């Protein structure tokens, strides 16, 4: 590994650690200032006040906030995210199986997002201002303007209520293999695609247009090389690097965007676990999930920057020499 890349990684990792630490403080403070408390949420609205007190004591919620945070961060550093309130189970145990569902959802979306946006973006660039371009651009621009719960609802109405092709609610059954329940993931994946695709397609289209009008492409064409080869050998590689950042941005967004999508489809993932935990004021779970999402966000950005450096020799050399 060369020096600038190593340097970059080191600074970024340090920054990432600082970010995570800061986020943990902010989220902890927020949970403290949220009105309502976990004990009351656990025992029901009209719980006996003495039972509420007892539960608060049991989970150490009667201690000062600083002490609570210190004991939590101490555990978190050793990988122990504490116990979920009030079930008392470890947070890992509670969110582990759900994290698998979220991972399937986001990774599938990402794996579809990347090839689709390149195909659509480059096609739109080649057929600029013609019918194909409009057919690609108009729907993507419309969906980018819509929040995921609107897209999700429209998909439910269309595919579940009218066409009756797909289930409207993602009721995953843990006792059956996930491979037999793929239909439950289709609408959520489409929702996430709908909210991310437009931005990447627009970016690819813009970059591809620039590449297509560049002099070297003109020269390649003059040499009589087949259009397909021009596209694959010359246009595609040159659109990848500038779009990595946009893809990374959307991938990072997916990590958080699942919260709403999972709620719309009632899909048991960490996103819906987060909204449940907030309602239950289950502080350790809220902290663990927000940190997982933050860490994913930071990690994706880190990877994208490293990729850009690796794929762009000019940047690498320029940094190395100055």
């Amino acid at each position, binding site marked *: 590994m060369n020096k600038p890349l190593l340097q970059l990684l080191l600074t970024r990792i340090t920054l990432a650690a600082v970010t995570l630490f800061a986020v943990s403080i902010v989220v902890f403070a927020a949970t403290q200032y*949220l*009105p*309502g*408390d976990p004990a*009351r*949420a*656990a025992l*029901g*609205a*009209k719980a*006996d*006040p003495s*039972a509420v007190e*007892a539960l608060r004591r049991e989970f150490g919620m009667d201690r000062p906030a600083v002490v609570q945070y210190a004991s939590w961060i101490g555990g978190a550093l050793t990988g122990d995210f504490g116990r*979920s*309130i*009030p*079930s008392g*189970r470890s947070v890992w145990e*509670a969110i582990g*199986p759900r994290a698998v569902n979220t991972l399937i959802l986001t990774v599938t979306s990402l794996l579809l997002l990347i090839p689709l946006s390149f195909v659509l973006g480059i096609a739109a660039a080649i057929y600029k201002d013609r019918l194909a371009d409009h057919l690609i651009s108009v729907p993507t621009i419309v969906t980018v303007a819509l929040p995921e719960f609107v897209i999700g609802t429209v998909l*439910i109405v269309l595919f*579940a*209520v009218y066409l*009756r092709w797909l*289930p*409207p*609610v993602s*009721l*995953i*059954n*843990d*006792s059956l293999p996930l491979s037999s329940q793929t239909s439950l993931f289709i609408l959520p994946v489409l929702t996430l695609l709908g909210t991310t695709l437009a931005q990447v397609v627009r970016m690819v289209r813009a970059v591809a247009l620039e590449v297509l009008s560049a002099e070297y492409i003109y020269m390649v064409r003059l040499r009589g090389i087949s259009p397909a080869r021009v596209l694959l050998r010359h246009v595609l590689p040159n659109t990848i690097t500038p779009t990595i950042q946009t893809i990374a941005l959307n991938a990072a967004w997916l990590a958080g965007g699942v919260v709403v999508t999972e*709620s*719309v*489809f*009632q899909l*048991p993932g960490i996103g819906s*676990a987060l909204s*449940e*935990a907030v*309602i*239950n*004021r*289950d502080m350790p*779970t809220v902290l663990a999930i927000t940190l997982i999402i933050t860490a994913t966000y930071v990690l994706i950005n880190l990877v994208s920057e490293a990729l850009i450096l690796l794929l762009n020799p000019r940047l690498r050399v320029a940094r190395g020499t100055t």
Partner: protein
Amino acid sequence: MRKDVYPPKADSTLIGRRDVLKTGLLLGTGMMLAGAGLRPALADEPKRGGTLRVGLGAAGAKSSLNPFISTGDMDFAVAQSVFDRLTDFDKDGNLYNKLADDFTHNAEGNVWKIKLKKGVVWHDGAPFTAKDVVYTIQYILNSDNKADAYPNLAPLLEPKGVRALDANTVEVALKQPYALLPQVLGSKVMFLMKDGTTDFDKPIGTGPFKFVSWSRGQRVTLARSDNYRTPGQPYLDGVEFIAINDPTARMNALVAGQVDAVAQLDGSLARLIEANPALTLLRSKSGATTDQFMMTNLKPFTDVRVRQAFRLMIDRQQLLDNALSGYGRIGNDLHCITDPDYASELPQRAYDPDQAKSLLKQAGFDNSQAITLYTSDAAPGMQASATLIANQAKKIGVDIELLVVPPDSYYSGPNFKKTQMGSSDWGQHTLESQFGQGYARGAYWNEPDWTSDEFDKWVSKARTTFDGPKRREYYVEAQKVLWNEGAYIIWGFRDLLDASSAKVKNIVPSTQRNLGYYQFESVYFA
């Protein structure tokens, strides 16, 4: 997705009858008439088989299989299917013996003998005996177990007060005479468990369905108990409870056939169900309320005339039609309409703004001072009713300002019970449990901090009166005090709204809770 709803082996006698019918057709008109007579019976004959998939709200990570700690609808529905109580309430709210056979007490009324039903068997095959009852009551009375029923039982007896006299008789020695022991033992959280039970990972009960598997907060699978005490029941092969927390998603899942029944619909969705022939709306007239209260320790509600005026200035029908979409019953400022001892003989308080005005005048009410009404969307129709009440008050020149907070911080928020008026909601209760929780002197959930010596006198008399009709008289006297001087504005009772596929038969709406009190032993697929 559903497993065989119509198993070929369904019911051999059915096929027999069909054969009779066919023969009847051949034999002539006389037999045909007889055949026609048989037809309705044929349609009503419950079929065996099928798994009922029920979509309902669940408590997520805090879900539990412990029936003594009820956190969400799913946990409660599971407990209802797996466990039984000594007594229970029927669909109209009347008490009946479930696993108890007979209650007797000494002359003083502080020592009770409970005879148990014979022939009741646990899911593991062991017989149900008095030891199980003693174990359960002592478990509840141990505060370490945090049983929901602890506050119901702890004031009545010590753990050593309960003992088994023989295999089928339990003796309960109370701290003092108490007439309502059978009723208290029918409380929602008074399930019976097997002697020696220490955990609920694989709960064993006496109920119609036995536990198979679960995924916490998401899904619970139950199967027919083969040693259930009613021969032939349950008809279903099993029940599957599936967590769907969003009411719209529950409705979607039902329409798409992902589930066969759903609990707790909004009134706005109920109309859609009624319009759909493939679905059945199940409407239960419950005693649950969304109501408002007036703090009796804050001005101007220290004056009983102001409280009376506020009760007169609200248009109950409008509140019911708008805040509850018409799915409910008008209230008469008294809780517990489903209790047999509810004072139904008291006149319905009418909408009378003129009288309200004159009462306010008598009390020297200051119209220029706004009254604060603390509210939220914490229960069906809560915020809507508060908004409507503020509008109705305006008509007689009373200014009510709403203080609205988010639902999840409503009851625990710092302003609860601190403003002149507040909103509240109560579930299905008996008068006894409502009075204990919400009307007792000093009780935290006595929301308006209302007290009355006369009311207390009648209630304590009722508690020690063993003659039913006499006890009812005392309860009515107590409710008269509430009707005249109380601090709740109880404008309506909410219907519980559920829905099922039209193929699901015999879910009988119950006053007690959703989907026929979640009792599915006599439910079947058509």
